[in-house]
């Protein structure tokens, strides 16, 4: 086992500090409305945190090549699955008549507006 190598890696306590700091950062950023950019920042920070946990807490840094390879295979599989779903979804043809689609979209929009108004009203109580 490679105990002498582990002296050169940052201590677990330091990693915990970085993880907690990144948590504060994500929560802080969530209160700033940046539209679609919010989820990109949140997932980016989460991925840094996940990488820190995997590399240092789970000692992936000190594992052999085959373990590292098998640890990263599910990431590739997930990328294929999620990527495939997001290629498939927009290419689907809606079997409903165009007027019906427009109508239902209007109805949905109205319902969402009502919902937002209701939530907003409740927040002031």
């Amino acid at each position: 086992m490679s105990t002498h190598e582990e002296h050169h890696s940052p201590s677990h306590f330091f990693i915990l500090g970085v993880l907690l700091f990144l948590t504060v950062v994500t929560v802080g950023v969530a209160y700033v409305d940046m539209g679609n950019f919010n989820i990109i920042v949140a997932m980016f920070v989460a991925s840094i945190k996940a990488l820190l946990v995997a590399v240092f807490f789970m000692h992936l840094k000190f594992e052999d090549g085959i373990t590292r390879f098998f640890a990263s295979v599910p990431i590739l599989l997930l990328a294929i699955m999620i990527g495939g779903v997001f290629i498939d979804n927009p290419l689907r043809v809606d079997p409903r008549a165009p007027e019906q689609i427009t109508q239902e979209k209007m109805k949905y929009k109205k319902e969402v507006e009502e919902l937002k108004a209701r939530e907003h009203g409740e927040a002031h109580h």
Partner: protein
Amino acid sequence: MTAHSTHEVSPGDPPYVHHMDSKTAYEAAKFGMWLFLATELLLFGVMFCSFAVYRAMYLDIFHVASQHLSKPIGAFNTAVLLFSSYMAAAAVDDAKKGNNQGVTKKLWGTILCGLVFLLVKSYEYYDKWQHELFPLHPNFSKNFAHYKSFFGLYFCMSGIHALHVIIGMFVLWFYGVRKSSKGRFSSRYFTPVELGALYWHLVDLIWIYLFPLLYLVG
């Protein structure tokens, strides 16, 4: 001395495995654990995928619905899990040094953090039930029919995650604390602590993604 007489193991020695030496047994066990963790990631991956699809379909509803989850409570639970993961990692370090007392203390700490996490989670679930925001509540579809996809996914994902926390606590107690309190671990044998900790870190890792998705960006 014949091979059969080595069945007796002294404390700190790896258990006798008749078809391989202890280093091979350690490497094989750890590799098997990583394979299992890969399947766990895929289990949650399917749920993350459906979350992504429904979020893309009902973006504004997800935004409004996620406002019902408390960011400070979610952040507190994230910190609790991160700290528990740190203690699990520290327990592995202690086990490698043969410090069994340290392992016992740190694993109990990890289990306690898991318990705090579950208590906070139960409070959140209870609060959602009180506000009729649980999809199986009799008044849910009357008042919150639009929230069905968000809260369905929220309870499904956080519920299966909570189940993993419960299993992780049991694993750390059964394979960790029970053995470390008998002084079973040493620099030659610490496989159960390391594998239990790996499982616990995975539970933490999944929450690292669940928290921002459910509580922060909706």
